[in-house]
């Protein structure tokens, strides 16, 4: 505890360190390092919150944990571990979700500073709003592989976490997934989709071709139930009969280069082939994949039977579920002449795993505390955003910073009162419930939204209000094209004006709704839409919405809250990074970037990647145009 030793810091700072109460949100990769650094520096009033428990794959970096602590609450174990080297510190650990309404304004107001060491956009947005609302300075952070960043957020002084639109998740055309897969990732998505059809959530909020999918999903499950999930029958249906049916739909493959090829019927009766001694980094043969498939169906079915609501959530850490996706995606690849992938690679892609190392977390955590020391003394101008590069830039820089603080975006929906959102949907079909679940909670990260239109309450977070219009369509609820309404979250002290436009779907595959930050974006989108002719390229066909409610550790572990099909946002991040500036970066880095994108790791977590893209751009900006302001991706 440096602050207890006279002469180490100047007396003013020494007192600030001893007295300032700090909230650390997250006790994962960055969190462990930050907690250690805070305690050693002499901060003695700390609270730490995390909702996760410790997993084996955390142990390569979350050094406050050991094998014996696997399964226990991160926040509690982290506290116990730091007390060993410094028992004289007051740490309160919370095993819970920072978005829980019990951590409201009164809770946040206790702190001089909040540090985010989080792993998902939703929680980051939430803490951002809480800190803006309470006017508490916030340090936001993240790492991915060798890269990372530290950002300072203060209301009215800097850009907030939500000042800039974040890139939309990468989407894959549903038709590609179902009919014309070209790459392993398409088959992996399909395999996860199949898992959900058989064992997962019957999801009413699939944003494409709804009826069709619904019935298909139900029928696949019904078929499986009727056949008692017989592995061989299932194998024959999915990888033989269904493919034949597909091939019989002549026009489907008429003009396409991609056509399925039937597997040899003799495979239906093949002997069991051993695969257990194949390393996860080695490729399985077609025959081994078949045996793996046949072996995993029954154990999963048994899990499914005893699950709550007969609904399994696919989990990359469940060996059988992982084997299901490995074998199904490779078998699917075999049908479409796509190269197989190893178990290791498929796990990365299907499980959205972000690589993570101790050193990047430690560097970011060190910089967080340096920032904290400046913020406590009010030296905000010294708290520019810092980015950790994987390799030195041409000036040797590895930890590089923005040239100046980024000012708030006056049009921000969150930190400015002038923000408004344009929302388009088919008002005769979109329900009030969908508005709440899909738009306000999922898209806009609200926790307990209220909606009022011309003083009329449409959605109330207070059940005692007795407002229940959930099953009405927006039209029935009184909305008309061009109308505006207020959406508000009291807990977050966040309100935004939403202008709604009625827009019928021109194609089945169109999204159920769209969100724009201003009218210009809406016009641009409309123009682009008009230019694109449907069916010219199946990339434009029908887009799958992605799992937004999934969560991933800022440094590596993933957890999926809701399992829609899909590819998750991590992927985009990587792509952005590649686009963002790999060309200008040294060979080493290019290699790494390429390696990552080859593996097509994708994960649910978006902000890190966006930030990293921003970082790359920032690096270039610093190096080349000396204007970090232009570095933001909007």
């Amino acid at each position: 505890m440096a602050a207890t030793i006279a002469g180490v810091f100047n007396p003013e700072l020494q007192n600030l360190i001893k007295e300032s109460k700090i909230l650390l949100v997250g006790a994962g990769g960055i969190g462990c390092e930050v907690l250690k650094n805070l305690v050693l520096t002499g901060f003695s009033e700390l609270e730490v919150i995390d909702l996760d428990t410790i997993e084996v794959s955390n142990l390569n970096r979350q050094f406050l944990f050991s094998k014996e602590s696997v399964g226990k609450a991160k926040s509690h174990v982290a506290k116990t571990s730091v007390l060993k080297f410094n028992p004289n510190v007051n740490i309160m650990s919370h095993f819970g979700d920072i978005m829980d309404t019990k951590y409201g304004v009164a809770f946040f107001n206790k702190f001089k500073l909040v540090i985010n060491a989080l792993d998902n956009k939703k929680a980051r947005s939430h803490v951002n709003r809480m800190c803006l609302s309470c006017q508490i300075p916030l340090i936001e952070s993240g790492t991915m592989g060798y890269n990372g960043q530290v950002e300072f957020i203060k209301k009215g002084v800097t850009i907030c976490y939500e000042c800039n639109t974040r890139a939309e998740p990468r989407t894959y055309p549903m038709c590609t997934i179902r009919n014309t897969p070209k790459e392993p990732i398409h088959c992996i998505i399909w395999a996860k989709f199949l898992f959900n059809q058989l064992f997962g959530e019957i999801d009413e909020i699939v944003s494409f071709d709804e009826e069709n999918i619904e019935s298909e999903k139900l029928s696949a499950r019904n078929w499986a139930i009727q056949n008692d999930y017989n592995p061989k029958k299932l194998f024959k249906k999915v990888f033989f009969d269904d493919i034949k049916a597909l091939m019989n739909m002549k026009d489907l493959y008429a003009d396409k280069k991609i056509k399925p090829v039937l597997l040899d019927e003799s495979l239906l009766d093949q002997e069991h082939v051993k695969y257990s001694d194949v390393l996860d980094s080695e490729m399985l043969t077609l025959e081994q994949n078949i045996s793996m498939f046949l072996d995993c169906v029954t154990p999963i079915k048994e899990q499914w039977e005893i699950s709550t609501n007969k609904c399994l959530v696919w989990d990359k850490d469940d060996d059988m579920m992982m084997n299901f996706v490995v074998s199904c995606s490779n078998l699917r690849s075999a049908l479409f002449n796509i190269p197989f992938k190893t178990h290791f690679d498929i796990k990365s892609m299907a499980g959205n795993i972000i690589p993570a190392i101790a050193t990047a977390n430690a560097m970011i955590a060190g910089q967080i505390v340096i920032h904290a020391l400046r913020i406590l003394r009010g030296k905000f101008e010294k708290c520019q955003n810092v980015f950790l590069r994987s390799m030195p830039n041409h000036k040797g820089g590895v930890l590089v910073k923005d040239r100046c603080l980024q000012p708030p975006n006056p049009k921000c929906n969150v930190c400015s009162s002038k923000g408004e959102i344009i929302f388009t949907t088919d008002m005769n079909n979109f329900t009030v419930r969908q508005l709440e679940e899909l738009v306000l909670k999922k898209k806009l990260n609200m926790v307990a939204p209220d909606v009022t239109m011309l003083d009329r309450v449409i959605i109330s977070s207070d059940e005692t209000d007795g407002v229940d219009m959930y099953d009405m369509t927006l039209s029935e609820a009184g909305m008309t094209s061009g109308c505006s309404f207020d959406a508000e979250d009291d807990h977050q002290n966040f309100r935004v004006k939403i202008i709604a436009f009625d827009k019928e779907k021109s194609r089945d595959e169109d999204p159920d709704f769209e969100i724009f930050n201003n009218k210009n974006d809406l016009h641009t989108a409309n123009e682009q839409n008009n230019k694109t002719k449907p069916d010219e390229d199946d990339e434009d066909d029908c887009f799958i919405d992605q799992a937004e409610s999934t969560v991933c550790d800022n440094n590596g572990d993933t957890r999926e809250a809701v399992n829609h099909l899909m590819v998750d946002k991590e992927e985009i991040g990587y792509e952005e990074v590649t686009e963002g500036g790999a060309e200008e970066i040294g060979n080493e880095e290019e290699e790494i970037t390429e390696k990552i994108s080859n593996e097509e790791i994708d994960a649910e977590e978006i902000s890190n990647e966006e930030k990293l893209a921003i970082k790359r751009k920032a690096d270039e900006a610093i190096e080349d145009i000396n204007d970090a302001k232009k570095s933001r991706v909007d």
Partner: protein
Amino acid sequence: MASELMKNGDGEMSKDERKVYDRQIRLWGFDGQNKLRATKVLLIGMQGLGAEIAKNLILSGVNSITLKDHTEVSILDRCSQFLIPRDSEERNRAKASFSAAQKLNPNVKVIVDTTPIEENVDSFVTSFDLVIATECSPSTYKRLSENCRKSNVKIFIADVYGLFGYFYQDVISTHSLYGEVFPNNAEIDTLTSTKKKPQLYYLTSALLKFQSDSNRKPNPDTSEEDIEELKSIIHPQINDSSSDQENKESDVFEEYYGELFCELSPTTSIIGAMVSQTALNTVMNKPVDNYNVFFYDHIEHEGKFHLL
């Protein structure tokens, strides 16, 4: 304690190891991980910076790490040494750090060595693939650098002074030795050198000269005298290299002086991680070989490599 056979480097990576290292194997591959599993490290100095480096290397899964320190635990260690439990009865720093260090990763052989490096023969370093030295005297660094160059052992030399920190690396034989980059009498170098060096080079040289003269680092107990001493070392240097107005130049480090005492945690975390990752990358055949010195500037919060 686990038997030697269960440790790293003996045969194939076990399933358990793969699970623990999963997130990093996805970054540097099985090849990289296997190279780390075969790497024997000597780490000299177990204060805060040493603790950080030990943590990072042990977590990464190197074959073995020898924690070498002959000195006793001090109250100043509390600023950054997190491997020594407060209730430890061991007086020696390396011994006191052993059990927390080993617990970080049972796959790594953690070895304690309490002999001063000065008492080891020159060839001592040849039993290691990688040497990382902290908290030694400038003359010891010079000797280590020469010995490692002779026997082709990669060496990293790192120190943290308060919130400021730097490291030197020798991973390519065409670069300068430590004693050439930081000669005992740095003034001579600034006179003869035509190339202007980064500002923090002069701060580092002054700190090293202070250490040579006083046989210790600047200390919080004597902070005022030590700052004066440093200023008197720095002033002629700055004047030699750029002969502008003396007053203006002498203020360059004004903000730095107050935060140069002890090894402070945020910077041990940064330098410890930077030196560890650079060393690990070197082992995995991805050295940063166009530079040899790294400075972390805590005032500007920038970390940069230089070729000196």
